[in-house]
């Protein structure tokens, strides 16, 4: 973990409420895809934990959904502004387990970490398929970005306006054979995927956090391997250890 100041390079809306912020600074503690950062915003007591969508050199990208006062404030921030951020938080995904043809599954605000994960897997020579789940066409983001790095992209929308009508699990049949799964999204999505496939995998969880670095025990969960802190021992759990 590192605490440092990061400069906003760009901050733009991708959809009505999903934003992309690119930041520059010391990324040396970011060691794995699926990790998160914790942003301190003026006027708010707790930091905002947000997953890392991309990282290259000394810049990284976060995608965030505007849902409360904190993210509303973030959406108004401009290039050149500086934010105090804790980086390199959480365990992240282990790409060594992926096999040759991993399947990535991201739902809504769970899509962002799949991008850096896909980039790393592609760099390792893996054949990557991603299922992206959204409610409707207007909420789709990053489809082109995934396609541009050579990922096979399947879209599921709840209203059927794009791709398969239904949830991410309804697109599983189109994914072909896959060796492993990586998932991030709302808990009902993760649970549906868990039940829909026998293939092993790693699932990223979300929880309200106090500190984000393992001190306060605010985000504890029970697993088959004992109590874990989502922020520090997670957010990624293996499929085998999850207790629903």
């Amino acid at each position, binding site marked *: 973990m590192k*605490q440092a100041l990061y400069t906003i390079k760009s901050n733009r809306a991708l959809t009505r409420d999903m934003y992309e912020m690119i930041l520059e600074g010391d990324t040396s503690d970011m060691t794995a895809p699926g990790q998160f950062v914790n942003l301190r915003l003026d006027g708010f*007591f*707790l930091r905002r934990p947000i997953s890392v969508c991309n990282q290259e050199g000394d810049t990284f990208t976060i995608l965030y959904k505007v849902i409360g006062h904190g993210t509303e404030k973030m959406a108004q921030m401009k290039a050149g502004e500086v934010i105090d951020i*804790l980086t390199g938080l959480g365990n992240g995904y282990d790409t060594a387990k992926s096999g040759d043809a991993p399947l990535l599954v991201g739902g809504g605000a769970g899509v962002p970490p799949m991008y850096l994960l896909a980039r790393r897997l592609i760099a390792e020579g893996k054949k990557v398929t991603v299922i992206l789940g959204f409610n409707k066409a207007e909420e789709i983001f990053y489809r082109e970005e995934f396609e541009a790095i050579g990922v096979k992209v399947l879209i599921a929308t709840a209203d059927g306006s794009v791709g398969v009508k239904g949830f991410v699990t309804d697109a599983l049949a189109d994914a072909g054979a896959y060796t492993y799964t990586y998932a991030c999204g709302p808990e009902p999505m993760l649970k549906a995927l868990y039940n829909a496939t026998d293939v092993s995998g790693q699932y990223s969880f979300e929880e*309200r956090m106090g*500190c984000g670095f393992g001190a*306060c*025990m*605010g985000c504890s969960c029970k697993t088959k391997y004992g109590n874990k802190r989502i922020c520090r021992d997670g957010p990624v759990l293996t499929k085998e250890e999850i207790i629903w």
Partner: protein
Amino acid sequence: MNTKVTLTGVTLDNPVIPASGTFGYGYEYAELYDINVLGSLSFKGTTKDPRFGNPTPRIAECPAGMINAVGLQNPGVDAVIAEELPRLRSVFHKPIIANVGGFSIEEYVHCCEKPDKEDGVAILEVNISCPNVHSGGRNFGNAPETAAEVTRAVKAATKKPVYIKLSPNVTDIVSIAKACEEAGADGISMINTLLGMRIDLRRKKPIIANKMGGFSGDAIFPVAVRMIYQVYEAVKIPIIGIGGVSSAEDVIEMMLAGATAVQVGAANLVNPFACRDIVLDLPRAMEKYGIDDLTSIIGGAH
């Protein structure tokens, strides 16, 4: 310039102590900085049996603070003595405050007897904001009689200084502090969190699964200062001040109210370097306010 303070014969290099529950057993922070800059450290509240604590969500944000309902998650006193304490002592060589909780008098005694025998543990800090399972769940800290009962039982079973950590969720904290002093307490830690609640406007239900939780952070600082001021006038034993401390100025203010040392809680969760920053900033603040020796300002506002 002297930052040393003494709690019942235990001299600390400075009065800054991370508060129980915001610092784990120290390791997360030891990875970030040399925690030996701290005066002491109050470790995570420890109970007789291992506890997972409350369901999540356990955390809710507030203006200038936060609510937590962790529910005393800890591995139990035996695991703390066997595993956590040796690990802590390998990186931390200053006096340690053992924070213990309990759900009966017997559990308090059990949880104090064990760390009482451990080298490195200098003070036993007894959290009496726990429900008494033998008395309809009423908190021990809610009445002078039960607070005194815990104090007497723990004092009879231990040798190290016993500090009773008081709940602010009472009508008259002074009477409870006096009852603890009369029952033999060596000191008072105050205040624990204030009971609070936030409601999610979308779900229209409390944010925290436990519904209520402990409100801490900057917002409670004036409440803590006021209560310390009142208790200082009523007791002779030292007070460890707790509640919303986040700067060297806050340390000085709380000591002027009557605290001999000060614990820093929620601030650690927002700025993991908060305690270190306060320690490093203390000499500057002391110089600014013309203070040569911190001990000389204890209770100075009276």
